[in-house]
């Protein structure tokens, strides 16, 4: 176990508290700050905590779609596959991202620039099909505008 995870584990327990109910806020902080959930960090937390066990943290982390175990790319693309977007052709939009980036859903490009994900609704159904890139929602996306969206984030076609 690297000392780096040890220190971070202590700091997280200090910040949130050593109780089952803080499992999700702790994992959310890790996901935001590290970009993924490093398993050695979960082990480090468990070894210091009274009430948080490694299996419980791991179980929670695997249940919720927000958590990932591999580092994400610099930009995260979330293509909405909610019902409204689906009937407005979201499948074509996902396909366009997949073929432009040459990756599958859930994967990250080798240059670590983009991670491609799908989500079940961004609440912008009136502008379907919708795509969220780094927390910003783009509406009425077309197969043609996909390239422009990627280019704006530094993608070379």
């Amino acid at each position, binding site marked *: 176990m690297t000392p780096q995870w040890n220190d971070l584990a202590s700091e997280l327990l200090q910040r949130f508290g050593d109780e*089952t109910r803080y499992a999700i806020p702790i994992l959310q902080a890790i996901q935001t700050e590290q970009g993924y959930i490093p398993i050695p960090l979960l082990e480090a937390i468990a070894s210091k905590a009274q009430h948080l066990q490694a299996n419980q943290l791991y179980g929670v982390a695997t249940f919720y779609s927000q958590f990932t175990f591999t580092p994400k790319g610099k930009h995260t693309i979330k293509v909405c596959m909610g*019902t409204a977007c689906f*009937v407005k052709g979201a499948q074509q939009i996902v396909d366009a991202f997949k073929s432009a980036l040459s990756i599958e859903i859930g994967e990250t490009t080798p240059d670590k620039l983009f991670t491609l994900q799908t989500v079940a*609704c961004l*609440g912008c159904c009136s502008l379907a099909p919708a795509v969220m890139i780094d927390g910003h*929602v783009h509406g009425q996306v077309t197969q043609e505008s996909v390239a422009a969206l990627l280019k704006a984030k530094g993608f070379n076609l």
Partner: protein
Amino acid sequence: MITLAVGLGTCGIAAGAQEVYDELLRQPDPRYILRKTSCNGHCYNEPIVEVFQNEELIGAFYQVKASSVKSLLETLPSVWGQPSSRQGQEQRLVLENCGLIDPENMNDYISRGGYVALETVRSLLPMEVVSMIKASGLRGRGGAGFPTGLKWQFALNNPSQPKVVIANADEGDPGAFMDRAVLEGDPHRVIEGLLIAAHATGANSAYIYIRAEYPLAIKRLRHAIADVTAEGKLGTVLLEIKEGAGAFVCGEETALMASMEGERGMPRFKPPFPAESGLWGQPTTINNVETLAAIPWIIRHGAEAFSKWGTEKSRGTKVFSLAGKVKYPGLVEVEMGTSLRSMIEQLGGGTSSGLPIKAVQMGGPSGGCVPESLLDTALTYEDLQATGAIMGSGGVIVMDEATCMIDIAKYFLNFIQNESCGKCTFCRIGTKRMFEILSRIAEGKGELADIDELIDLSSQISKASLCQLGKTAANPVLTTLQYFKDEYLEHIVEKKCRAHVCRSLIRYHINSDVCTGCTLCAKRCPVSCIKGVTKGPHRIDASHCTKCGTCLSVCRFGAVTVSTGVHS
């Protein structure tokens, strides 16, 4: 005095409203005051700049671009667009402030009667508040339609202390966005409703459980909570936000509590009901955002003013989110009992494609598809249920003739089998089997026996599942089988998809008599399977075609055609 209001909800911002607002800030003009509001429900026209004269709406600028701000200011005080005629046909109670006030300014809310209800309620006994809500006939807007007053009474009657109230802002139903709009546009209203629920049930802790996919709503709620805390409006109540971590099933109340307790969000057996033993074993009241948002209005105007709207069993108004292939997507709030047809045709403008409506999906993954022939159904809990669909949270997805019903059923079963928490075998595996069968049918590999298999699995899953996710999982399949069986048979027997959606069952051709040889399709085809010389007829190599449809959409001469079925 003229006020220019820019709608800065997530939808408006996605359409470019922030840039418009920033541009207006850069060009200050003594003739007007600039106000930041949120989504007013007319999402199809965004970005919108509404013009108010002495707080009265006199007109609006629609689909504004930052580059057109200059000409907009030159036009003032006249405007490009009239206030939408839709406004007059709605009954806005829950949405009364959305799009009118600055959600980050508590005084805006207060100036429109905000927190009066909370003051009133705090001088009443909890039992009196419960009676008032009971008399209003308000039923929960989160899906199940349970009477809110009765729910509060159960919690109030439980002598155990401490107690909890929770606002369910998980809004997981894909295609529904009314809760987001209220949270972003009028966050204090939800907080006021929640504080009233706390007083009526005797709770000292209040939580708002909100999905992480709504960052703007979270930001505005935090802002609002800081303001009410500073103003001392919380009294003895502790109010906190809990962010979800991405699981549809966590909208179910017992899973939601498991998630707040730090566990995997798996539903629990009821009883005990949350009012008996909820969060950390404490008596708990969980209400949907829209339910809570109706509360302050009811207290201010009286139970009777609310119950005079709607029908005997479905009182008041309901917010619906119109999306899918509808011309004017957005939010509408109508009296319960309004017909589905008038909501979609008059307020929604019919289909965006101009094609006939085929069906309307209501109630999300637990709901069903209402066919065009039943569009005169009244929007009440009981009438919708009779069609096989449900009111649900109010998400309305319009589908035109270019939508394939097998594709839709398959979509929902895929969603459900992904989101099943895995606790019950039938929900976990049965929905997967149903998805596989539907995929087979969509690929032209279905058999007639598959239909019986689907019906059989549906009833088994519904009987052997613990929570409503599993119990209602088959609804999208059962309603499409009930109303669109001919489409299932076409897929199975004729290998035909009349909507031209199921890729395995369609073929693209180029009509050489019509093709001008402009080469556009060949340039755009992502797999380069279109061959031909300039000005000569082009041909598609069917063995490599992925059926992406690009050639059909780019050809300006109508030379690309689609065929389906064994007989074509």
